[in-house]
């Protein structure tokens, strides 16, 4: 039965598909595999598509200039660095994605999820800790306990648990925080020229929300 691996996929331009399967052995189609003594596996290719099947819990680092990256199944640490191309991660313990353009979708992250982009739209389902940074791409998190987002001109949408700590800062974008549950929230909201709406009662015992925009509006509402 296959133990979790550390797989590095480095390819200038290719579609990369990784599928994590419990108990599977490593199988690579479209790439050249080099196994190292420390257990790490390097995958390189000059072809236009790489398909990898690996044991569940494996960690994967993907470096590309262009081409989509998709992971399915439960992975350990997932790191993706790409210039352009859609990135989709279904489930991982820890995620770090860096892209210039190309939509980013994360399903579930048990630990820390960090995404940096210039113009991509970023969507995160659930994560324990999430940190998003974008210049012009809209960022959204359905549910997080500890969420930090920073954009230049794009909208920030965060779904916060009732015990969440949220930090959302944008220069000209709008901030929307939706608080789950019925508890009040402690809020520190500031916009120089935009409207600020508090639709959740101010008080202790619930989420802590800190948000700012220089010219965009800020709203905190029930989820």
């Amino acid at each position: 039965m296959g133990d979790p691996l550390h797989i590095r996929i480095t390819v200038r331009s290719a579609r990369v598909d990784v599928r994590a399967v419990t108990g599977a052995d490593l199988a690579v189609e479209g790439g050249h595999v080099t196994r190292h003594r420390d257990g790490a596996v390097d995958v390189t290719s000059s072809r236009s598509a790489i398909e990898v099947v690996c044991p569940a819990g494996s960690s994967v680092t993907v470096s590309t200039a262009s081409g989509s990256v998709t992971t399915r199944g439960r992975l350990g640490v997932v790191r993706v660095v790409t210039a352009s191309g859609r990135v989709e991660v279904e489930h991982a313990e820890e995620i770090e994605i860096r892209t210039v353009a190309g939509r980013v979708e994360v399903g579930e992250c048990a630990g820390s999820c960090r995404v940096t982009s210039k113009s991509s739209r970023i969507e995160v389902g659930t994560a324990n800790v999430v940190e998003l940074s974008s210049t012009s791409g809209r960022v959204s998190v359905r549910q997080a306990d500890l969420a930090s987002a920073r954009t230049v001109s794009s909208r920030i949408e965060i779904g916060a648990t009732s015990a969440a700590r949220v930090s959302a800062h944008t220069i000209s974008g709008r901030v929307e925080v939706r608080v789950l549950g019925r508890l009040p929230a402690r809020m520190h909201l500031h916009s120089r020229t935009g409207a600020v709406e508090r639709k959740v009662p101010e008080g202790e015992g619930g989420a802590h929300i800190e948000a700012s925009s220089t010219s965009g509006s800020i709203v905190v509402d029930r989820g």
Partner: protein
Amino acid sequence: MASSVSTSSGAIVFTDIVGFTELTEAHGDDVALSLVERQERAVHASLPAGARVIKALGDGMLLWFERADEAIVASVRLQAEIDADGADDDALPLWVRTGVHWGTPRWRGDDIIGRDVNLASRVTALAAAREVLCTDVVVARAGPMPGIELTSLGSVYVKGIVDAVPVLRAERLTVEG
């Protein structure tokens, strides 16, 4: 007539203000100038002896360090200096991204030119607001740096450079508990 050219090894650091165009558009040139001046103050406050500003680049700066570890530590310290200079609510956000690389550029007068300068610039462009990205070359050169946490991000393909370049994020080490 050929100008005087020399070489020496050192750490090349670029800084860049994130969202500068948007802030200038929204708040005008005087505010833009004040942001640039805030960055300059913070950079000068972060520079150790032996490091220097090579030139200002509009909303960015090009810096030179003789030691790799000092370049990384100063880059991490830079954002704290910026925060200290504009901590109130009404201060406009000054988010600086920073890239650090070690190399041997050509010196042309007081300026530096070459592949390593280009690479440092490309790495900087990949950094998020308030983030410090370093090449593996400068990190290897730096050795241990107490108080600095490094996270490998994998290798990046940058425009104009053939091979993927391993990069790491440098940040202040946070102690839990």
